[in-house]
């Protein structure tokens, strides 16, 4: 069994299932819309406050939206005991992790892309020239959150209070990702020179690599425990 073939099958199955059910997509979009609307009303007359806080607002929306999606990543496998079938398939558990991770990144990033124009409209942002770097930061942040979230989704899938446990585990561990993403986004949207906020992007990418490597390393134990 090819390692990469297993990854492709997992991505195909996860994305096809989500495209058909749209269960996660709807709840993620509704939640993000609520966050954007609430913050936009709070800052409607204060452009200075918007400039100061918009990076944090963006990552609050992205982060918590991602948690909704990540919580379902392994929970869907409980239906019809599919998790059992995944566990006893003759495939490396790392392939299951990477397949789930990539499906999560594709899915969450797609939702973020839909939310981006809403931030532009509701917060009067000018991001056209900054878009390529912003996309890199978004991918970096989404990758970091998904790397940890996919692992913790697998870790908590068998426990009753998984919906509560996932954010409790994920949010403290994801602090470096949030700090890197918020600081890089703030520098970019505030018009700072690239060299000024580049270390934050580097930090983000370093943590992405660390989280993916560590998760890949421990997933065999997590799925077989």
């Amino acid at each position, binding site marked *: 069994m090819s390692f990469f073939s297993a990854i492709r099958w997992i991505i195909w199955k996860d994305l096809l299932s989500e495209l058909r059910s749209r269960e996660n997509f709807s709840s993620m979009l509704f939640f993000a819309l609520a966050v954007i609307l609430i913050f936009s009303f709070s800052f409607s007359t204060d452009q200075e406050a918007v400039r100061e806080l918009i990076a944090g607002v963006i990552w609050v929306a992205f982060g918590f939206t991602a948690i909704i999606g990540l919580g379902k990543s392994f929970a869907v496998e409980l239906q*019809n005991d599919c998790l059992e*079938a995944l566990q006893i398939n003759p495939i490396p558990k790392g392939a299951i992790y990477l397949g789930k991770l990539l499906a999560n990144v594709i899915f969450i990033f797609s939702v973020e892309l839909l939310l981006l124009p809403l931030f532009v409209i509701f917060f009067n942002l000018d991001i056209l020239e900054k878009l390529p770097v912003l996309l890199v930061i978004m991918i970096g942040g989404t990758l970091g959150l998904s790397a940890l979230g996919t692992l913790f989704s697998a870790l908590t899938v068998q426990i009753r209070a998984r919906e509560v446990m996932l954010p409790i585990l994920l949010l403290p561990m994801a602090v470096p990702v949030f700090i890197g993403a918020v600081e890089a986004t703030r520098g970019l949207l505030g018009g700072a020179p690239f060299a000024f906020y580049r270390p934050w992007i580097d930090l983000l990418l370093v943590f992405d690599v660390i989280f993916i490597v560590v998760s890949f390393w421990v997933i065999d134990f997590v799925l077989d425990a």
Partner: protein
Amino acid sequence: MSSLVIHAEALSKSYHHFQVLRDLSFELEAGVCYALFGPNGAGKTTLLKILATVHRPSGGRLMIMGKDVVADRDAVRGRLFLVAHGSHLYDELNAVENLRFAMGLRGLAPSDRDIKLALDRVGVGAFADLKSRYFSAGMKKRLAIAKALLARPPLLLLDEAYSSLDEKGIALVNQVIREATGAGTAVFMTTHDRAKVADVARRAGVLRQGALHELPLTALTGTHELF
């Protein structure tokens, strides 16, 4: 080459302080169907899940086709297929997609014709494009059997093989078992229905208080209580 598929030695399983299985030793050869009986909670499914590498034994040694189930799990997993109580089907995928996904993860790529033949064989060919969420329990069981047909494993594990199936479905399971054992596959199944399995089982056993007792085949056609 040895035709031994399962070799269990002093196998035991405990959950916390509760011992479900104790000192189980048995062997199963290729081409033989073994039917396992036992009262509810006797540990039939636990034993089946240890054989399927879902659970680890608490003690003893279990070899499947010469490979240790604990030390060489991935190699063992490639040699068996479990038709479990849960259907292992994804609700949002249709019958064909479910088969493709399950076989894809086993490194197999059955042709469209093979998939159609397998679906027709189990009697759900007309529902090939229907999402499995709309399948009845019996149809899901048939689809799970279609997966086993495509996987062609050396060891086939069946948990409550006849549950949810109608008479034709039961005959289908027995026919699949006959063909599988004829082709050299070892079949290990749990069931409560000795009359149905009497046609295909060449060995039988009963789990009582965690211990396995071999039954004579005549017990399958008799009417006396097994446990």
